[in-house]
């Protein structure tokens, strides 16, 4: 068995989320049946275009909605530029899923704080949708999402809809609103914590993903709330080549992000240099 071998898949739909981020729905070639895709929220796949290259991407969809993988991709380099040129029905190649993903079984029965900034929405949308699809398994759910402007907010319309639901608290904020029509908060994501009420900290899991600078400030707030450090989960970015613990790129001390990550606890972060 060649671990580097990828599977053929087809792009079913493409949506533009922001100026430089597109959303891709992808279906593996597996006959005509709706396929159960076996992955966990927080895992990632290697996507490749032969001749261009291969890179890791978070899965944005949830296994509770079978049939499709969804990816949220920012145009940042050679491969993503080519992916952006693709049209619906184009063929792309996948291998995975890889990584540990979120410990969703352990998280059951707990309150959830899901905190995302910028492209951090890509992996955390998977966890959010999973929790909403299995709503009875979780306690209170808070979503805190920050972006620079309304135009930069990933899944803006989808999340604005969630504000009307009464089984979660959806707190959205932008650093600045240049449209004058933004219906939610303005300010940085940490300011949203004042609206987080009535959670049981010892019985809460927080999941954080965003730019490195965000972690410091968000984690401070979470520690202030007295959420145990091993229940503060972070999903981290890392340069990767193979995805299977061989090429060395994503190694942090004695662990490989592609095998033992990308989801780590704040406790791990405190005990490992270079994790963020």
């Amino acid at each position, binding site marked *: *068995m*060649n671990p*580097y071998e990828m599977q053929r898949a087809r792009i079913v739909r493409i949506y533009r989320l922001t100026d430089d981020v597109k959303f891709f729905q992808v279906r593996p070639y597996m006959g005509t049946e709706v396929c159960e895709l076996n992955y966990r929220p927080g895992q990632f796949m290697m996507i490749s275009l032969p001749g261009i290259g291969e890179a890791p991407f978070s899965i944005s969809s949830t296994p509770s909605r079978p049939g499709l993988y969804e990816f949220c991709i920012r145009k*940042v380099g050679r491969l993503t530029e080519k992916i952006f040129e693709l049209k619906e029905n184009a063929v792309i190649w996948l291998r995975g899923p890889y990584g540990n993903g979120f410990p969703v079984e352990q998280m059951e029965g707990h309150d959830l704080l899901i905190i995302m900034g910028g492209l951090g929405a890509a992996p955390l949308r998977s966890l959010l949708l999973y929790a909403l699809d299995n709503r009875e398994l979780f306690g209170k759910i808070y979503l805190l999402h920050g972006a620079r402007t309304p135009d930069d907010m990933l899944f803006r319309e989808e999340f604005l809809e969630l504000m009307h639901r009464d089984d979660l608290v959806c707190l959205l904020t932008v650093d600045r609103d240049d449209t004058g029509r933004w219906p939610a908060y303005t300010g940085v994501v940490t300011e949203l914590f004042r609206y987080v009420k009535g959670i049981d900290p010892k019985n809460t899991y927080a999941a954080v993903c965003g730019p490195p600078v965000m972690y410091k400030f968000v984690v401070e707030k979470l520690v202030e709330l007295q959420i145990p450090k091993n229940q503060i989960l972070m999903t981290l970015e*890392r340069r990767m080549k193979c995805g299977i*613990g061989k090429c060395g790129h994503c*190694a942090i001390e004695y662990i490989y992000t592609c095998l033992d990550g990308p989801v780590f606890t704040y406790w791990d972060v405190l005990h490992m240099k*270079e994790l963020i």
Partner: protein
Amino acid sequence: MRRIKKEAIEKKLKELAKDYRIFAPMNGDVKETGGEFEECFPRLSGKCAFLPPEEEILRYKDGKVEETPEDKPIILFGIRPCDARAISLIELAMRDEKFPDVYFLRKKEKGIIISIACKEPGDTCFCTSFGHGPFSTQGSDALLVEKDDYYLVLGNEKFFKLFGEGEEAREEDKEYFEEAKKRAEEKIEKIPVDNLGEKLLSRIEDPVWEKISRKCLNCGACTFLCPTCYCFDIQDLERSWGVSRRRYWDSCMFSIYTKEASGHNPRPTHRERVRNRIMHKFSYYPYLYGEFGCTGCGRCVVYCPVNFDIREVLKILGGSG
């Protein structure tokens, strides 16, 4: 122990070139040869045979993905015992239950590694520090010791089946072997490595790393010449028939090695990169696999353009320097 005429082995090696790919030291580096070899301590190590600088890992042809077909099995001949050991150390990282690296492992499983004992170790050698030495057999299918026009051979069935059994070694051969071994081992500097992994870990934030790493150019020479370094990059190469996906040696000494798509770099300076290289070999590798990721071959000392001496670093951090 057996004894086999040098001539017989040399002749056999050339014959085997028909059915095997022969890798051996030649003109100063380990490279593919027609069965010739040179008695030397090569600059490029034996890892070239099993983890080549460039290697196809996948083919994309007519809209389909194919595994790269297997080549002839490999005979790696005439390397030093430290290089043979190094390949067994790389194997620890390549062999895992979930994602075994088929390209390395299939070569390793069918390949044969024959080392020549190191009777005249260099002054940068420190292999005995790790409990092995110039006559070590770990990782070798056969260890040859030169004596006049014979090789004294400690080998396994795999070796004797191919090269013949020669004759039983004489009492004086065994004495010669022990004496040569002792003499070679005595020449080698031993660096204290007791609890080295733990010591390094306790000093991970020590300001000394700043001093140690200051002169490093981050050129990566040490990592490419290191017989146990195995990191690789993956790139696609367009061919007339399709796409060849290949892996190439890479180096953790380069800043781009860890640079993320967002621009963030978790190992932004020399300090973190040098620290990672040292810690990986002497702290993380023992933690993961129970062995140091270094054979003490001394190449990184010999070929470093700014005389970065890993032995000095180990002495400083291990508390003996």
